[in-house]
């Protein structure tokens, strides 16, 4: 392509599409400008500040020695490597009263002619030279002192109990000029220990004004800092070693200087302690001795009583025993007498028995004689009997023999008997009875024949005679025998009786003998008993005597013991009164010693240990400015991205459309044989020109307008004389590069995609993208349920995926911005309610001037006289600097100590935020507000170190971390305060609650209070809350900006996308118009998919918004305030609704465009 034709076409296109070109240029300018400008703001702020610091030679270190510096200290500092300058300064906080009577608390710092560090910026007049000259800070809104013109005279004063003449050479000062100082770039002037604790203004006076011997402050500048930019990491790092060295030097110097004082105080304290201990010991010993004596008396008494009891018991026992003995004696006597009686009876009985026995013996002897007679009689009788028995036996034999002889003599008369026979008979009879035989022989002749008869008859008669005689004899014998038997029996009986009687007598003799022995022993026993009884009687009598004697002795002894005890008691009473008297003095002594010890301890605790080495970071103005710059920097990293994104989006769509529109031309050119590069070069050049000119424009304005505007806003808060807005090459190149790359890429991709097609196709109108089934259609049950138009919308949504993504992202960004804006307000608004309704329960506070006598008492009388007050609690509040561990940085906090912890909970609800657990003041430590604890990474149990306005450093354990939002607080009970500082917390104000806050007349109350000159003023929580709400009211602007940005984003995205949509689908739209779709239906046909996408985008945006909000809150949070992280549900709703509103607005605009589409023309292009 010939250069000429190319450029001709190029310029013509440019002219024809000037709006398009301008729009790309504008949007690029906006995106680049915004990005570059916001990004440049942080470095610009820092550069501006640094320039000021360098120009005024702001010190890198400010070292304060609580004892004042000795010349050798300063010399030592100067000798440290890397020190460029170390200059001494004096300062003094005084009240300055102007001619109108207005009193300011002013920090006077010394100024010498040769001072190079912290050079003041002279606004007007000149610097002080004479001792009664002063320059005060000036510069407009920052303070009231600027109103005092040069030449005004000021009177200096100090609080009661201090002499101004001790420290300053002049009491009145004349203003000779006004200055600004790099040390005071913010409104913060620091804390002091006079007045209400805040410094109103600063001033410079000549060094000659100060009478102090020692230098109080040393300002230090390092050699390297001249080449380093403030706030940079390099700057911060280069201070580390030096800071460490200075701290060590300070510790050594202060330690050496205070060693003697410390030792003396320690010694004194130890002495006091030992004295106190001695006094205590003495007191205790005296008490113990008294107690011992008391115990001894008690013991004596008890012993005495015990003894008496014992003796009395013994006596009683003796008596009882004696009585018992006597009774036994009488019993014994009675027994003895009874025994004697019975013995006597026994003796008599024995005598009787003996007599009886003797009689029986006599009888027995007689009986024996009789018995022996009887035996003899019996024996003779026996002999007779035996003779009779023999006669009888012979008679019997004779009879028997006669009988036989008779039996031998025959009965009949017969022969007579031969002689022989007779002889034989005779012999035979002879044998038996010779008489008979003789008689026969005589009388009878054997030859007589009648002889036999006669014999027989004789024999018979004899026999009968004999028989009879025998019979008689037998009878007689038998009778004699039985008589003998009876006699024998009788004799035996008598014999037995005699034997028995003899035994009896013998037995009787034995028993008698025994009885005799018994009686004899009984007698002996009786005699013994008698003797014993007599002895017992003697003993009893002796015992009785002893007893009486013992009783007498006991009484005597008891009386003596009692007397002794009485004496001891008297002695004890005396000892006690002596002790009581001694104790009082001893206790007083101890109390005094204790107070002295406490004083010594307090002095020890208050002995400084080191220099307070501060870097610039300790300066609230310096660090605040740095924080603000960093905050802007953080914002710069996120918000411009949105604008950049939008710009890129717009460029992309615009370029795409441009290429689309020139399709036919591209096709023609291609058909004519132009190369792809040659054709696309036009669009690339177009995009390049548009975006680069836009970028340059954006950079030119952006680098200036955004930093300038933002810094201008900060100029209200920071006194930096000049803000500079230099261009930043890197940022500019990056922004431009990004912008160019985006537009070029858009142009390239659009033209290349067009150039891919063959000329013939290109010359025809672009075929609409063919329809396609979407995944959703596969889910038959769902798909069937959709209405026809819903199906169509669903298909269209997925038809152009690129557009889908862009819409969702754009709308999500819009919603996210809105939510962030609203959430910002929510989060900060929530602080007020939480701080003043949930944590600070009191309705107001009163401050008093403790330097005035009786201020506290007057406060009591005034507040208890106020009828509107429900209750009040006196408090001590003071400003303290909480030390950040191992660094010179501190955080300002309010130390609040109630006069008593009991009712504290009615005025402050201290609790842990997450667990809502109440925190008690009486846990022996400090309760720290949450933000401060976060900043210092403190937990319960850690130690917190803080410095009061008198530069006394204290450490205390953290007992809890309380939810708190505005500024930092340390709470402790008066006891804890006492323990830590060895001082009693004197109240310097009070908090109070109202009976009815709504009906309270605040101004009347205020007036009544201020009538008392000890009362400095009062503040109602309500007005505090309002005040704070007002300061954060500026956030409305931020929210508004965010809403505008969000709206712009939504509009740009939706407008662009819908407009592409319409352009691309114009035939389709014309067709449905021809089909008779009403306007509303046509719009719906086109917008329905946008509505769906907007919905998706909104939902995604809500999620994104929560994240963005959190980021922004984290970024914007300042050290003194803890922001809430809450987003109210209405904010979600509003964001949603606003997004919807933007979408509706865009759609409304587009509705008009749709109505204007001419069917005939739209369809004609095909012809």
């Amino acid at each position: 392509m010939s250069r000429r034709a190319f450029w001709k076409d190029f310029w013509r296109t440019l002219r024809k599409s000037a709006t398009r070109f301008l729009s790309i240029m504008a949007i690029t300018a906006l995106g680049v400008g915004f990005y570059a400008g916001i990004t440049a703001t942080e470095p610009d702020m820092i550069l501006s500040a640094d320039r000021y610091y360098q120009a005024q030679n702001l010190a890198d270190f400010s070292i304060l020695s609580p004892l004042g510096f000795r010349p050798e200290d300063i010399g030592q500092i100067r000798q440290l490597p890397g020190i460029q300058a170390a200059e001494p300064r004096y300062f003094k906080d005084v009240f300055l009263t102007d001619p109108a009577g207005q009193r300011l608390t002013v920090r006077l710092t010394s100024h010498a002619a040769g001072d190079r560090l912290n050079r003041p910026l002279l606004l007007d007049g000149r610097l002080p030279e004479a001792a009664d000259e002063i320059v005060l800070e000036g510069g407009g809104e920052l303070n009231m002192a600027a109103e005092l013109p040069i030449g005004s005279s000021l009177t200096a004063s100090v609080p009661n109990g201090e002499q101004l003449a001790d420290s300053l050479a002049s009491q009145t000062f004349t203003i000779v000029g006004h200055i600004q100082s790099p040390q005071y770039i913010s409104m913060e002037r620091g804390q002091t220990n006079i007045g209400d604790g805040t410094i109103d203004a600063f001033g410079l006076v000549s060094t000659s004004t100060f009478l102090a011997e020692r230098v109080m402050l040393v300002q230090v500048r390092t050699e390297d800092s001249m080449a380093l930019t403030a706030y940079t990491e390099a700057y911060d790092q280069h201070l580390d070693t030096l800071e460490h060295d200075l701290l060590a030097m300070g510790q050594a110097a202060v330690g050496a200087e205070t060693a003697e004082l410390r030792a003396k105080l320690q010694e004194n304290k130890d002495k006091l302690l030992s004295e106190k201990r001695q006094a205590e010991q003495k007191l205790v010993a005296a008490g113990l001795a008294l107690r011992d004596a008391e115990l001894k008396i008690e013991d004596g008494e008890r012993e005495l009583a015990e003894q008496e009891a014992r003796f009395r018991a013994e006596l009683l026992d003796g008596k009882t025993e004696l009585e018992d003995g006597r009774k036994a004696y009488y019993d014994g006597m009675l027994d003895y007498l009874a025994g004697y009686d019975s013995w006597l009876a026994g003796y008599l009985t024995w005598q009787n028995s003996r007599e009886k026995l003797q009689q029986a013996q006599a009888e027995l002897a007689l009986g024996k004689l009789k018995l022996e007679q009887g035996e003899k009689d019996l024996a003779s009788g026996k002999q007779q009997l035996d003779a009779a028995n023999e006669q009888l036996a012979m008679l019997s034999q004779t009879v028997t023999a006669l009988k036989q002889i008779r039996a031998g003599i025959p009965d009949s008369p017969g022969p007579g008997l031969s002689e022989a026979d007779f002889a034989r008979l005779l012999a035979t009879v002879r044998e038996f009875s010779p008489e008979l035989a003789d008689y026969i022989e005589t009388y009878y002749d054997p030859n007589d024949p009648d002889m036999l008869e006669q014999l027989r008859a004789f024999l018979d008669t004899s026999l009968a005679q004999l028989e009879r005689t025998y019979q008689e004899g037998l009878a007689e014998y038998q009778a004699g025998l039985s008589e003998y038997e009876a006699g024998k029996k009788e004799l035996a009986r008598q014999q037995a009786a005699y034997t028995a009687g003899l035994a009896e007598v013998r037995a009787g003799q034995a028993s008698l003998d025994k009885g005799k022995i018994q009686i004899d022993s009984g007698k002996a026993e009786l005699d013994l008993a008698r003797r014993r009884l007599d002895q017992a009687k003697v003993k009893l009598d002796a015992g009785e005597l002893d007893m009486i004697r013992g009783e007498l002795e006991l009484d005597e002894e008891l009386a003596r013991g009692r007397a002794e005890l009485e004496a001891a008691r008297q002695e004890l009473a005396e000892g006690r009164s002596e002790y009581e008297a001694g104790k009082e003095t001893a206790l007083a002594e101890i109390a005094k010693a204790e107070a002295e010890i406490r004083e010594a301890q307090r002095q020890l605790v208050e002995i400084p240990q080191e220099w307070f080495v501060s870097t610039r970071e300790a300066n609230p103005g310096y660090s605040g400015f740095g924080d603000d710059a960093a905050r802007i920097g953080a914002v710069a990293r996120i918000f411009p991205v949105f604008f950049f994104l939008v710009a890129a989006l717009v460029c992309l769509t615009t370029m795409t459309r441009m290429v689309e529109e020139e399709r036919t031309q591209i096709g023609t050119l291609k058909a004519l044989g132009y190369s792809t590069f040659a054709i696309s070069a036009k669009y690339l050049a177009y995009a390049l020109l548009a975006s680069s000119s836009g970028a340059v424009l954006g950079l030119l304005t952006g680098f200036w307008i955004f930093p300038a505007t933002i810094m201008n806003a900060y100029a209200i808060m920071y006194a930096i004389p000049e803000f500079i807005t230099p261009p930043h090459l890197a940022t500019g190149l990056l922004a431009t590069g990004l912008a160019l790359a985006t537009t070029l890429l858009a142009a390239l991709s659009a033209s290349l995609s067009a150039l891919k097609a063959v000329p013939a196709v290109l010359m025809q109108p672009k075929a609409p993208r063919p329809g396609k089934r979407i995944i959703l259609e596969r889910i038959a049950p769902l798909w069937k349920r959709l209405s026809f138009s819903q199906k169509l919308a669903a298909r269209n949504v997925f038809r152009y995926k690129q557009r889908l993504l862009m819409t969702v992202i754009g709308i999500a960004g819009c919603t996210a911005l809105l939510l962030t804006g609203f959430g910002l307000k929510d989060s900060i608004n929530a602080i007020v309610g939480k701080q003043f309704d949930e944590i600070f329960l009191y309705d107001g506070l009163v401050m008093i001037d403790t330097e005035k006598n009786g201020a506290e008492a007057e406060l009591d009388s005034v507040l208890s006289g106020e009828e509107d007050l429900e209750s009040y609690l006196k408090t001590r509040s003071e400003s303290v600097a909480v030390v950040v561990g191992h660094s010179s940085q501190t955080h300002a906090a309010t130390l609040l100590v109630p006069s008593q912890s009991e009712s504290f909970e009615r005025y402050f609800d201290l609790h842990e935020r997450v667990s809502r657990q109440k925190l008690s003041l009486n846990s022996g430590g400090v309760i720290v507000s949450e933000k401060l604890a976060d900043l210092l990474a403190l937990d319960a149990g850690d130690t917190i170190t803080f410095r009061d306005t008198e530069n006394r450093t204290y450490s205390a354990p953290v007992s809890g971390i309380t939810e708190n939002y505005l500024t930092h607080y340390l709470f402790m009970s008066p006891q804890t305060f006492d323990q830590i500082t060895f001082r009693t917390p004197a109240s310097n104000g009070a908090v109070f609650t109202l009976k009815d806050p709504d009906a309270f007349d605040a101004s009347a109350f205020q007036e009544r209070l201020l009538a008392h000159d000890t009362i400095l003023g009062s503040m109602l929580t309500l007005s505090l809350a309002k005040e704070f709400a007002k300061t954060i009211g500026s956030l409305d602007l931020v929210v508004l900006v965010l809403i505008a940005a969000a709206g712009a984003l939504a509009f740009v995205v939706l407008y662009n996308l819908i407009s592409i949509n319409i352009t691309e689908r114009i035939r389709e739209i014309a067709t449905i118009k021809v089909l008779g779709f009403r306007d509303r239906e046509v719009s719906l046909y086109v917008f329905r998919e946008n509505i769906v996408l907007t919905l998706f985008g909104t939902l995604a945006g809500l999620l994104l918004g929560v994240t963005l909000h959190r980021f922004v809150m984290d970024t914007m949070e300042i050290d003194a305030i803890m922001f809430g992280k809450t987003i109210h549900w209405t904010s979600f709703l509003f964001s949603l609704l606003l997004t919807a509103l933007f979408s509706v607005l865009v759609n409304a605009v587009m509705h008009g465009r749709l109505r204007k589409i001419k069917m005939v023309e739209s369809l004609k292009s095909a012809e």
Partner: protein
Amino acid sequence: MSYIELQDVVKRYKMGEVTIQAVNGVSFSIEKGEFAVVVGASGAGKTTVLNLLGGMDKLDEGTIRVDSETISRYSDKMLTEYRRYDIGFVFQFYNLVQNLTARENVELAAQISRQALDIDEVIAQVGLADRKGNFPAQLSGGEQQRVAIARALAKRPKLLLCDEPTGALDDTTGKAILKLLQDTSRLHGMTVIVITHNSALTAMADRVIRMKNGQVQEQHVNAQPLPVERIEW
């Protein structure tokens, strides 16, 4: 009074400084149920007439009456209703919605009509029962034109206006389409107006209107219209 009557219709277009009389006093009438062919060269104003008749454009002078309604006096809103209920359009390039299937394209028209025909029946009637699930890109030109006709018929319009319906089709396919249109007119009593530059088509028309330079050159009723098959061009 004829079913369709155009009287002294004038339509002007402004092209910069120049005013072009695209239609310059056109008058003709068509009876109900007729198959009319408007024939003329490019730029003769026939499409403009058709657009005016179809309510897509507004005339500058004259009157148009359709079924005793003077549509030339209609507002935009009324014209939309007129197109919606009374007119069926068939274009040269079909103008199907690419993102809808054949059946859905018909449905698109049917859903806004009061007395729509059964969609599937209409599609069957144009002979596309098998292909109704396809997207336009998947159909041939003739098939797409059938879909377009079905879409027009589905609304049960009073008038079927066809602008060069065969212009983008080969002869055979074109004939088939024309046959479909003729059959529609014959079988359903539909008033069909076909615009073409092809004079050969006049043979099959009940009424022929010949235009030239924005004016009606000649109009006549064809007593013996030929069936499509017998026409050659």
